Each structure stands twice: as C-alpha cells, then as structure tokens.
C-alpha cells in the first residue's frame, strides 16, 4: 500500500472509531471514512462540489473539539481521534433531521407519527384521503430515508407553515419550494458543477429560499434545463414534470440500462429508466467519465423520439410516385437487384454508400465492408464534413 507507507512517513494518520487510517493531505474526515467503508450519513454533501456543512447530518465527535464537527467540511489531521457512532453524535443527527423535517412541508407522515412502527404509519398513510398529495419523492427521498434510519418519530417541533406556490410553468422541472430543506445541493449543482449560475440562496431567516434571477420562474431565468439540480435534490422540492401524473408521482418498477448518449460527441454515460418497454426517465451515471453524472437538456429530456408514433415500422417501396408498405423480403430483393443491375451496367463506382455518424462502430464497419467487398467501390463516406 503506497498511500499507507507514504502516510506513515509523514504521519498522516488519524483514528476513526478506534482504527488507524492513512489520509492524503487535504482529505476531509468524511472522505477518509467513506474510502474505508465507514458509514457517515450526509444530505447536503456532494461529490465534485465544495462542502457547505449546511445540513449537519454528518456530524462526528473529534477528541479535543468543543462541539461536534461536520465531517464533510473538516480536514483530516495527524493524530486526530474521531468517533462516528457515540450517543452524542446519534442524538445530534436525529435532532438535525427533526429540525429539517419541521422546516417545511414534509407530509410523508413522518411529522405527526406517534406510533412505534414505521410499517403501521405507512399503511395508515395509504388509507388516508390526503394520500393524493403525498410528497412526490415519497420512497425516493434521502431525508425520509434518514428519518427512518434514525427513527425520528413524533415531532418536538411544530412544522413551519412554509407555503410556496408550486412552479410548473416550464416543460421539464416542477419546483415545490415548500418541500425544500435548503441543503443547497441544487445551488452547488448549478453553480459549481454545471456552472450555469442560474439559482442561488435568496432572502434571509425564515424567508430564505432558493431563487432564480431575483426570484423569477426558471423559464424567465438563466436556467438551461440541464436538470442537474433535480438529480441533486435529496427531497421532493425538485421533481421532473414527466414523473408527475394527476396523482403525484408515476409509480412502478423501472429497469436501469446503462448506455451512451446519442446526441453530441461528448458521449455522456446515462441510465435509461425503462418501464413496460418504454423509456420513462434518463439520468447521468455518477462516478464515471466523461460526464460524472451530468447531462444536458437534450440528453436528459430529448428521448421521446424513441417511442414516437412516426417511427418507421416497415420497409417502404415507391410505386407510381407513392410509398407502399412492403415486407423485408420484398424490399431487400428490390435493393439487391437494383444495386446489382447498376453495378453490372455502369460499374461499381456508379454506386455510393453514405454511412453514418449516428450508427455504431460495428454498423459502420459492416457498412464500409459491404461497400468495398460486396459492391466493390471505395465510394463510402458519412456526414463528418457537414
């Protein structure tokens, strides 16, 4: 282990939960812990962005420190002794989660829960009439997940009556800031990752909220709808319009298929979310290049063409000036005969093939092989020049 050896030399070692770990200068406590498989929960922390320490869910105990320390922002130091699971840590995390839940409309029934069992409360939520305006992130919410994990129940704090009008006046993103916990991940995603600088923190105190261009709708701001903020939002404040139907989020199992975007040449890695044979959502693949989770508006929202009713479904043959549907057998026979006839009459160089920058490598390979070996000409090109 090169890192270990170097660390021993330079004494870059700290202790977490009784074990020694080497660290690189500049690494935070959180990074060292995560690298070594030690679980510290986070909400606002975001890979590739500078830590803000806003949510304080990642607090740990550091020997000699007066208060608990936000591990996402605190750099590891030689001989530091860190504890991640003490009663004080657990109490603080639970308190912070409770405060976040009380900070807005989080009606996943965590707030007024006074029973012992989560399952009971979930069952009860399904039965109530109010179920229809359940948070659209229900079941896919980092805050809810943490509330369950830390068994936050009852509510010591009266929820703030934060009400913001739900913004739906753009084609892609639904903003419900009454569900926002002001973790700042969307702001980081917009300003530090995509650097579109379209949103920021606005107002002060209890009026604080995320604003776009002096508190305007996204469509009237500098937003370019890359959707990075939605992918970053840990709660139900930012959701995709496409995920909503009249009754909140569209439910159902999806299968994730990893692939490469088919628009520009950057080659972003993406997941196609597939349900019942249809793509219902696209997200960026985190932790791998070239895009590390980022996508643009076309990659994230421009997938409808795949299932468009105008897609060609059968071969077409022109007859008397109009197209008629044909079988593959017919169509391929016509093409083979015509090409053979031209080849015989005018030579192979009277035929050309335009392959494509849109099809795969394998298909391009077959296309040029077909042109050269079967037709017998080098007349093959594609749209690189256009």
């Amino acid at each position, binding site marked *: 282990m090169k890192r270990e050896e170097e660390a021993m030399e330079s004494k870059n070692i700290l202790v977490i939960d009784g074990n020694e770990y080497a660290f690189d200068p500049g690494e935070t406590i959180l990074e060292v812990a995560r690298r070594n498989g030690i679980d510290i929960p986070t909400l606002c922390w975001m890979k590739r962005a500078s830590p803000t320490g806003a949510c304080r869910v990642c607090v740990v105990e550091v020997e000699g420190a007066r208060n608990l320390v936000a591990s996402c922002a605190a750099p590891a130091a030689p001989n530091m002794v860190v504890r991640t699971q003490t009663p004080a840590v657990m109490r603080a995390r639970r308190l912070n989660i409770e405060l976040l839940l009380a900070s807005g409309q989080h009606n996943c029934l965590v707030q007024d829960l006074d029973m012992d069992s989560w399952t009971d409360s979930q069952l009860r939520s399904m039965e109530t009439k109010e179920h229809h305006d359940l948070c659209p992130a229900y079941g896919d919410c980092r805050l809810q997940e943490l509330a369950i994990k830390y068994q936050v129940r009852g509510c010591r704090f009266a929820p703030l009556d934060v009400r913001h009008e739900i913004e739906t006046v753009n084609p892609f993103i639904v903003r419900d800031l009454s569900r926002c916990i002001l973790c700042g991940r969307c702001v980081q995603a917009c300003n530090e990752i995509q650097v579109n600088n379209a949103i920021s923190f606005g107002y002060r105190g209890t009026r604080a909220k995320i604003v776009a261009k002096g508190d305007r709708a996204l469509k009237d701001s500098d937003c370019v709808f890359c959707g990075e903020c939605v992918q970053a939002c840990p709660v139900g404040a930012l959701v995709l319009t496409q995920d909503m139907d009249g009754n909140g989020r569209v439910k159902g199992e999806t299968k994730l298929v990893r*692939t490469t975007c088919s628009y520009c040449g950057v080659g972003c890695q993406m997941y196609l979310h597939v349900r019942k044979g249809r793509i219902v959502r696209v997200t960026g693949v985190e932790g791998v290049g*070239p895009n590390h989770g980022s996508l643009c508006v076309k990659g994230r929202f421009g997938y409808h063409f795949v299932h468009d009713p105008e897609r060609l479904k059968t071969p077409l043959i022109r007859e008397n000036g109009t197209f008629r549907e044909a079988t593959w057998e017919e169509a391929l026979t*016509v093409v083979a005969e015509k090409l053979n006839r031209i080849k015989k009459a005018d030579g192979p160089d009277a*035929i*050309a093939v335009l392959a494509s920058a849109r*099809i795969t490598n394998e298909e391009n390979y*077959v296309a040029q092989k077909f042109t*050269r070996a079967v037709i017998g000409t080098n007349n093959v*090109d594609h749209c690189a020049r256009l």
Partner: protein
Amino acid sequence: MTNPIEDIEKANVILITGSNTTENHPVLSSFVKRAVTRKGAKLIVVDPRRIPIVNFASCWLRQNLGTDVAWINGMMHVIIKEGLYDEAYVESRTVGLEDLKKAVERYTPEYVEKVSGIPKEDLVAAARLYASAKAASILYAMGITQHICGTDNVKSLANLAMLCGNVGIEGGGVNPLRGQNNVQGACDMGSLPDVFTGYQRVADPALREKMAKAWGVKSLPEKPGITVMEMMDSAHEGKLKGLYIIGENPLLSDPDLKHARASLDKLDFLVVQDIFLTETARVADVVLPSTSFAEKDGTFTNTERKVQRIRKAVDPPGEAREDWKILCDLSARMGYPMNYGNVEAVMAEIREVTPSYCGINYERLEREGIHWPCPGTEHPGTPCLHVDQFSCGLGVFHAIEWVPPAEVPDQHYPLYLTTGRVLYQYHTGTMTMKSDGLNELAPECFVEISPADARKYGLGDGEKIKVSSRRGEIEAKARISDKAVDGTVFVPFHYAEGAANELTNTALDPVALIPELKVCAVRIEKV
C-alpha cells in the same frame, strides 16, 4: 481530441474558437467553466458571435468571418517576435520553424486588424496570454473546419499549439469537438473513401491485400472513392446512379439544398435507411426502417477517442431492424454472406484488422470506455496523444497564407450569413423535434441580427423577414440580439421550415472537401 476531456480542467489557458460550446457540447462546456471559476484558468474566446461562453472569457476576440488563418498567424507573429515560444520543445520535437517564421512575418497586429477586425492590442494580449500558459488547451469545432480553408485553419491551430509546446502534454492539445455522437467512430471504422479501419490507406497494396484476405475476397478496389459532396455532384452529372444513405438527412444538412434535391432527383436508385421518414427518405425509392440507439447493443467512440458501450434497453417498433443486420441480409442476397452472430462478433473482426482497436473488447468496456490507440488487451488505452513524440516523428510546421472566403458581401448581397445549432435542438431536428418540451423552448427558425443592423433595415424584434442568397431564399422571424455582430446574421440549420441550407455555399475546402457552411453572402428584406 489529442487530449481527454478531463484535461480541460488541468489547463492554465483555454482557447475556444469556432465552437459555441455551451449550446453544442453543454456537458463539455462545464469543464471549461469549472476550469475558469474554480481552477483559475484563463479563457480566450475567438468568435464573431457573443456566444454564452464569452461570459467566462478574460479575452474575447471578435474576428470577421473567415479570417482565422490571419489572426492565428498574427498571434504566432507576436509570440515569435517577443520570443515567447517554447524553444526547447520546438528544437527537440518539431521541424519547419524557419518556414513558419517567414510565413507569419507579414501578419503584424496592424495587418491582422485590417483583415480580421480584431484590435491589435487585443491580439497582442491574447498571444501573450496563450504563450504564458504552462499548459494551454485549444478547443474548436465546425466554426473552424467548415470553410474553404478549413484544413489550413486546423493546421494553423496545430502550428500555434506546437510553437508553445502544448501538444503531448497534460492540459494541452488541439481538440476538435465532434458534433455527432459517433462521428469519430465512423471515421475510425473506415466509413471514409480513402481508408479502411484505423485510417489504413486503401491506396496501400499491402493493406488492401490484408483486408481482402480477412474478408475472404479476391481483391479490393484500389482507387479512393468519392466524398459526400462529390457524391452529390457526381449524381448531378449523372455519373453516380445508385446511392444508399444510412441515418443521414442531406436534404436538410447539405449546403445549397436546391442543388442537393436536384442531385438526388437524378439518381436511378436511392435507398434510405433511417428511423424516421426524413426529408431525404421522402424522395427515396426504398426506405428501410432501422433501430435507434436505445434498441441495440454496440459501441460509439466519442470526441476524445473513448470507445464506449451502448446497450439495448427497449424493443424496436414494428419490424424495424438493426442497421448491421439489414446490411448483412442484403449482402447475403448480393452473393456475399456475412454471418455475425451478434455485434460482439463484429467487434472481434474489427480488433483483428485494426491495430488501434486491437486491445478493445466488450468485457473491458463493461464499466468504463477505453481511449484508442489500444494495441493490446493489457494496454490501458491512450488518453493523450503525441506524448513523447508525434505519431509521424517530428511535428511539422506548415507555412500557411490567409485566403478570403469564397463568397464575400457585395452590393447585391451585403450581409454575411453564418449558421449553427441552438441548445434545445439537434442537427436536422429529426430526434429533438419529437420532444414537446424542447420544441416549447426552441419552436422555430429565426434570423439573429444585431441591434444596429436591425435599425438600419427598420426591423422590429419578431418581424418576419426574407433572407436570400445566390442559391435560394427563406423566411423567418428576426431576432434582434447582441449575440450578433454588425454585418453578419445567424440562422440555425435545424428547421425544415426556414432551412438555412437553402442559402449556404457549396464551395469546398480543397483538401478535406468540407463545404463552406459557415460563410456566405445574403441580403434581407421585409416580407
């Protein structure tokens, strides 16, 4: 790209020219923006339009259309005169400096200002900034290549990069940004008239013999074929009789659409294989339905030469078939069976005949792609090219002279026209225009015009105008914007209704045979 995308964040200076990066390569542009805002890099943008990335630039040069060789030579003139070039690098890794010196001698900042309109002090500042960088990255796109001097433009950028020792180093490079997902792969696979896979020349008898043997045929044609633009001309002249088009829409993307339509009309036989009935498919004799990227397995090679997997997620509609299967079926009918069990078998053959793809297989691509050249399965791939030496040995400086565009404004056509894309649409719109949300944000064609020109013609924002060139005319709404420079209008080429390419010029770069889509002369009038 000579360098990987992630290198952009390692550059001290980034020079972007002929690329509207934030709209055409949005995710890549975030690397540039992060380099500037978080890593302290300096950005030079050379572009006539006030494109969004200009907001991040510390130096913006607004050149006249088609004067790129002039300003690049001008920057080199300053760098050489002030002794700012990388002598050790030039000495050990390049040849031809004396020729270059001679060629750029007359490109004084004063002369360049006259030709390009770039104020001389700005040119000098940009030259000093570029030369001051430990590592400087050049990013360019079609704004550099789609000119009659496109090849010269690229060579000039290569001259500049080599002069300052920026090729073959981390954070440096000469980096073309590819506009289509697999344009790199299509070139790599030999979908070009003069080369087989991996740029192996068809003119080389040994390579022809190697490929003939691999493919089990007696011989292969030795004469290099014709390019896309030549195909159109050849059809127009009646020499080309049959054309087989896969996944392309030349009746919207080719320059001078009137000429393109007339050319396709003269063919005896046109086959179009596509996923939609495009403008081009509508005039075909036979249309074959193929699959989209979401309906098949395979690989794409991105702009940084990284070979990456695509995977089948959904079934194709109706009887649509994968492009390779259609071609194999057809091939069998024409007496040459191609029996591949699946695409992996095709990749196996590609590896066999292509040294630069030799080490690439699906197993290795499972988690992350690999940059070619990758000569063996133990080889990690090559993110950065030309590290210790150029692939051809020494880097050669080319002495290049500026030539004006093929068509310049005159009294009949007093304005320049340049074309490009917008953020919310893609190429000929076949795909993006199927998403309502994207159409809502970019619904129709427009003519971007500067406030001063709008005043001159008495135009209001949103007013319908006619734009005509020597080749055709279109109508679209005026969009008055300070993105536009005085004397030049911009029209996106996505829209069939108001197709910019009715106007564009077919004049070609003599080497690459790329048409001058970025410059022509037009006039505008109220409708």
